[in-house]
């Protein structure tokens, strides 16, 4: 029992540390990339490794903590549902945003090799 | 450490006060109707947050305060709950205030639209000048 708990805690901590690293990197990427379409990729890093993986890690750690009392299983359940929701909604949201920005011609695709959708926006 | 804690808590209070001042300024001096509505929502939220902040409770002897919901129904747990939980009364009052706030915002949105269809502008200075 104790060893299983130790494994859960270690795996959860590893996922959380990975998540913190990815979150910082994603924030740096937001500052280094100067274009909306490039920032989309930094946002994906912040969403998947920066949010979904550490949420699962937090759920694993929450299983081992007995002080949470009668609602002990409530915490990992809600965290995992939230992770699945993020996994479903975040890509749809950033796709909708990218499409809206592209159709409204708010931002130009820059730097750009080619734009098959709307060649005028390139460069 | 105690003084640092008090200072950090009063930073929260001070920023609520500053938010209140900024949104009050915007409500009076910004000419556009939508800007006034946005300032009104911010003002309402700030007042609500201030009410909840007053009901907060410091950590009691290194133990965090608790949500005002019982998780354990035994008598001794109720005694501990009484000594640790935050004040539920402001939360109950704010609850209805938020929903009423949404209804008022909806009313103001309808009103703004009627105003626009009548005057073709939402700038309060021009509306004052046009006068029907």
């Amino acid at each position, binding site marked *: 029992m104790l060893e299983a708990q130790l494994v859960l*805690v270690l795996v959860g*901590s590893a996922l*959380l*540390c990975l*998540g*913190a690293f990815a*979150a*910082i990197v*994603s*924030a*740096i990427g*937001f*500052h280094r990339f100067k274009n*909306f379409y490039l*920032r*989309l990729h930094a*946002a994906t890093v*912040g*969403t998947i490794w*920066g*949010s979904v993986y*550490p*949420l699962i890690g*937090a*759920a694993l*750690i*929450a299983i081992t*903590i007995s*002080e*949470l*009392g009668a*609602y002990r299983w*409530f*915490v990992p359940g*809600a*965290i995992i*549902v*939230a992770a699945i*929701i*993020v996994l479903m*909604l*975040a890509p*749809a*949201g*950033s796709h*909708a*945003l*990218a*499409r*809206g*920005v592209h*159709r*409204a011609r*708010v*931002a130009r695709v820059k730097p750009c090799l080619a734009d098959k959708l709307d060649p005028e926006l390139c460069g | 450490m105690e003084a640092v804690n008090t200072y950090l808590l009063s930073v929260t209070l001070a920023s609520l006060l500053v938010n209140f001042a900024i949104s009050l300024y915007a409500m009076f001096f910004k000419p556009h109707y939508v800007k006034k509505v946005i300032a009104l929502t911010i003002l309402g939220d700030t007042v609500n947050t201030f009410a909840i902040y007053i009901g907060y409770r410091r950590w009691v002897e290194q133990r*965090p305060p*608790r*949500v005002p*919901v019982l*998780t354990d129904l035994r008598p001794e747990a109720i005694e501990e709950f009484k000594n640790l939980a935050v004040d539920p009364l402001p939360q109950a009052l704010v609850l209805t205030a938020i929903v009423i706030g949404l209804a008022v915002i909806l009313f103001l949105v309808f009103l703004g639209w009627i105003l626009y269809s009548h005057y073709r502008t939402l700038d309060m200075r021009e509306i004052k000048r046009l006068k029907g």
Partner: protein
Amino acid sequence: MVMDLILALILLYVVAILLLSIVALRGQTIGDQVLAIDVITYMSLVLLSLITIYLKQPLLIVLLIPLALWVYALDIYIAKYLERGDLGA
């Protein structure tokens, strides 16, 4: 031991949120700002779950799911506004 790690991670996430909020406050276009608000919210989900574990208050976790669901609404409002110029119809 675990709790110390969790407190350190909370502070790291706060630093990431601070860095991102600079973009959210002064991004070049509306798209940048909404994207940054998205990522801030998804990171604050982790922040909130860590604080729940740290304070040992299981009931606080109910806020995660609404927060995750309704930032999506903001995304699609802005997307539809940019795409069509209005929201209805």
